[in-house]
């Protein structure tokens, strides 16, 4: 294995060529400095060689997010997950090939059923993205970015290469309008405005998803109502009130009455 020095710009260019739209770097010291997570979820506890976490994001394209709930969104969700995992794997291979140990952490991999049993992930891409300067933590527990608000998917590459961290977002991109809380069909979010982010009843969100397997399992109201993100301007969609009319019928969908189904019996 030949060890070749790689600049941050070279790694970013490689990641972008592989499909990543946002690329950020977080030294592991940030997990210790901010202590938002338990120690066992620090990246260097997940993999001891880790010195830097590279956070990659790709957007969920807004017109399809707006169709939620739909098979189109489900299809986009699967396609973006596939591209993300491939990009992270190939970026790790690029680093390894150049003599810098690296591993990808896939975008999830626990499955909804497991999440219900134990509602915590082995590694948080959201916190990694926050420490890597891609965005700030939103009321709805997503990473809110300047470019796409919360409408994106994340993945991380852990590497033994020491890379200078990107500046973290100052302040909070989430303005705590709490439209996500108002629009949530399962009332999963609650809390006081002085809280950094909401209390989230994960079981309520997960139970709904588990009930509606297939094209209706991805709800995502908390993503599409978020007013933050340059993608809204690009796609000329700034009227948020329309979602709340949908929400009324969505409540019926959630109960199964509106859709005239009690459960999804497809694949």
């Amino acid at each position, binding site marked *: 294995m030949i060890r070749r020095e790689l600049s941050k710009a070279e790694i970013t260019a490689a990641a972008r060529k592989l499909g990543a739209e946002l690329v950020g770097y977080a030294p592991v010291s940030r997990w210790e400095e901010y202590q938002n997570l338990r120690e066992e979820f620090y990246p260097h506890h997940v993999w001891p060689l880790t010195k830097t976490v590279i956070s990659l994001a790709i957007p969920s394209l807004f017109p399809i997010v707006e169709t939620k709930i739909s*098979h189109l969104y489900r299809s986009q969700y699967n396609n973006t997950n596939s591209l993300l995992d491939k990009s992270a794997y190939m970026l790790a291979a690029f680093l390894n090939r150049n003599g810098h140990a690296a591993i990808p952490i896939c975008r999830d991999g626990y499955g909804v059923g497991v999440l219900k049993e134990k509602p915590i992930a082995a590694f948080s891409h959201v916190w990694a993205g926050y420490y890597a300067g891609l965005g700030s933590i939103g009321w709805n527990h997503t990473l809110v970015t300047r470019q796409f608000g919360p409408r994106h998917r994340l993945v991380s590459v852990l590497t033994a290469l020491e890379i200078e961290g990107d500046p973290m977002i100052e302040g909070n991109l989430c303005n705590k309008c709490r439209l996500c809380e108002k629009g949530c069909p399962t009332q999963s979010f609650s809390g006081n405005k002085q809280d950094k982010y909401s209390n989230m009843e994960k079981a309520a969100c997960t139970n709904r998803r588990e009930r509606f397997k297939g094209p209706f399992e991805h709800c995502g109201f908390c993503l599409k109502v978020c007013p933050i993100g340059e993608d809204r301007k690009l796609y000329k969609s700034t009227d948020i009130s329309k979602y709340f009319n949908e929400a009324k019928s969505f409540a019926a969908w959630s109960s199964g009455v509106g859709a005239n189904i009690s459960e999804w019996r497809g694949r």
Partner: protein
Amino acid sequence: MVSVKLTKAQIIAKAKEFGAEFVGFASIDKWAKHADVAIEFYPQKIWSQTRTVVILGVPLWLSIEQTLSLAIAKEQERVTSDLLDEAAYRIALFLNNNGYPSVNIPCDSNGENIADFPTVTVFSHVWAAHYAGLGQNRALANWQHGTQWNLVSILSAFELECDQLGAT
């Protein structure tokens, strides 16, 4: 968001870099002119900013009739769909990043057995490809007649000049 004037040739080159073998362009007026599909399935009804549909295709060399194993044909379908979905998504991002709002419609835009559910949007890649010239002699010049294609579409605010219509 940067706004860069893109040419059809640049979009074709990028799509081929992502794996497309056929790249076609269909102006939205084709749907109204030919009236082959119901109005609610016109691309501008699905997404109002649409001015042009960009269609990507890859050939299916092993048709189900030609292969002894259904599993191989199904695998070919899966591999080509994955390739096309990724290529279409990345072309949409490429257009977005150059100032032309765009959104890809995945290969499987209706899903199995869900056509009865009214909230599901359906878009026909086949008609889009037809309007973009796939099936005409020029588009098939390098391919054996009767080659089957797997297709995907990108709805884009990109407007083609009149002399740019046609397929490659």
